[in-house]
């Protein structure tokens, strides 16, 4: 390209020398830029690799002692140094599921409203409110959850849930027990509020990128707003939407401070989502500073490794889902 651009009909010697110089400089600049970007990309791999190696190395004593039983034993006893990860694993997954069950539909509805139905003057205030929600530090969510949200749940919501579902099979187990105010459900609800901005703002951005001609065509065929959203907007933007959902899920799985405050931090698995539980990151945050003894520390690091693996599996499943979707639609 460069060669072509610089070729002239009458080139003097001086100009040729000049040209070679310019070319060399361009080549050098190009190579430098290529190497710089490559080094930046490699840095990610090196850092990730370093983290994996140190996690595996740190958790070796625990994994060697407990073997596979670490994955299914409920005991977490620092006194006798018997550790099992299933209770925090369960809490991590269940709180994230609750968060996603609430945040995904609500987030998508907000985004659809903002892009399809909202009057212009209301768009900016709602949009800014969503972004502000994302800017609140998680410790604030934790304190607000403990001081304001948990007492509210304890006094009004949880007694209501317990009486309403008290005699329905299955649901009665799910909403059983005294209303502590804090517990798995509270943590899930706080997480839902925290991941909502991620899902909403990304969905809104991708919804806005849908070519108007597609929507107009659908409306022209007599589609309702719901039909346009369901059969035009969502299919067109599924990659972006799933990306946003995954980003939110990633935050829900790893969120630490806000969860620690409201989950009750009990190493138990109970059928009721009103009961206290714990998550992997909450356990690590709670216990790492005062963990004395190699096995205890190592077990906490092993928990970190498990969280890493869970996140990896979730991301892999998302990819798989996306591939399936694409294959079915035939893109």
């Amino acid at each position: 390209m460069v060669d072509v651009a610089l070729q002239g009909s009458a080139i003097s010697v001086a100009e040729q020398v000049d040209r070679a110089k310019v070319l060399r400089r361009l080549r050098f600049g190009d190579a430098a830029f290529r190497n710089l970007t490559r080094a930046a990309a490699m840095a990610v791999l090196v850092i990730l690799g370093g983290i994996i190696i140190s996690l595996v190395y740190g958790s070796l004593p625990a994994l060697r002692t407990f073997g596979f039983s670490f994955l299914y034993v409920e005991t977490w006893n620092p006194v006798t140094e018997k550790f099992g990860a299933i209770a925090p694993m369960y809490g991590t997954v269940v709180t994230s599921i609750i968060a996603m069950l609430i945040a995904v539909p609500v987030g998508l509805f907000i985004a659809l409203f903002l892009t399809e139905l909202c009057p212009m003057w209301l768009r900016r205030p709602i949009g800014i409110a969503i972004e502000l929600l994302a800017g609140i530090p998680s410790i604030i969510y934790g304190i607000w959850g403990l001081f304001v949200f948990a007492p509210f749940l304890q006094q009004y919501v949880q007694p209501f849930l317990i009486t309403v579902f008290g005699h329905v099979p299955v649901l009665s187990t799910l909403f059983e027990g005294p209303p502590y105010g804090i517990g798995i459900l509270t943590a899930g609800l706080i997480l839902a509020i925290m991941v909502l901005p991620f899902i909403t703002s990304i969905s809104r951005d991708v919804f806005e990128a849908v070519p108007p001609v597609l929507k107009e065509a659908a409306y022209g065929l007599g589609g309702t707003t719901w039909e346009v959203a369901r059969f035009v907007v969502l299919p067109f933007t599924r990659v972006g939407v799933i990306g946003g959902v995954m980003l939110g899920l990633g935050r829900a799985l790893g969120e630490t401070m806000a969860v620690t405050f409201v989950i009750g931090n009990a190493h138990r698995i109970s059928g009721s989502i009103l009961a206290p539980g714990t998550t992997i990151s909450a356990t690590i945050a709670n216990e790492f500073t005062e963990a004395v003894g190699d096995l205890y520390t190592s077990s906490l690091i092993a928990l970190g490794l498990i969280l890493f693996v869970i996140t990896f599996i979730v991301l892999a499943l998302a990819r798989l889902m996306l591939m399936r979707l694409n294959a079915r639609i035939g893109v």
Partner: protein
Amino acid sequence: MKHWTTWAVAGFIAAAAFVPAQAAEITGAGSTFVYPILAKWADAYKKATGIGLNYQSIGSGGGIKQITNKTVTFGASDMPLTPEQVAKAGFVQFPVINGAVVPVVNLDGIKPGELTLDGPTLAKIYLGEIKTWNDPAIQKLNAGVKLPGSAIVVVHRSDGSGTTFIWTNYLSKVSSDWKSKVGVNTAVEWPVGIGAKGNEGVANNTTQAKGSIGYVEYAYAKQNKMTFAKMINHEGKTVSPTAESFIAAAAGAQWATAKDFFVILTDAPGDKSWPIAGSTFILMHAVPQDAADTASALKFFAWGYKNGKQMADDLDYVPMPDSVVALIEKTWKEQIKGSDGKPVY
């Protein structure tokens, strides 16, 4: 003129850079419980001597790790190491300050100090065996107090903590069931209850949930005017959590005969002793890498024992009694020696 200014600025910068280098800082790490009093002592000590303290309150576990790796001059732990552990690591261990833990409750119509509990009952509550407030075991200790029939909500610390260590140590001493089923540590496998982070978390959960019981450091219960319970102590006497009962517990302990000061002030003897208390312990190498640093740290602690009593009172800690301080300083002379074999202090 210009040169003159440049030189003056350069000289000033050089002087500023030089001054801190002369006054070496004492470095330490560990217990968060002891941090407020160490910070207050350090502030006053710096004004008196010019020597500062760099203390990282990263938790007892972290403190033990750092002193083991010799990255700090002293470590501070809320849980004493056993004499075997001390000998193995080549440490010298001594207590620096005491603190008390009090049970706090949230019951309608019960004011601070109106409820009385004893060790075995507390253990049964925390084991989940006593489930309601009007249980005969509690009623028996509180004749004439109207107790509700509501469920007991047990609140405990979720983070590893010296407070939990003192609490579980006490329950183990007074209940063999607790000792065999749960045991003693900075964090344990709680049979029942909800875990809350930090003193503030326990305080908050206890304040909000009706019928709850929790345990916090005394300073926290006092400053937040929480509903504390009285305790029946080792001698069968009912005591209130006050500075006098804490000092009685610290003074009555058998410091002189305990190797490496391995004493935990729970279930202490003496008519006036509060039964749930403990100390923060300082760990230092018996043969330090840098004798001058160690001597400087020991001087700081000696100064704190002597001049820091009022500051400790202000922050609701319990200072070490003079008789114990004499023992501690004797230990320094005997056990902490430089590479030349001479005492450092």
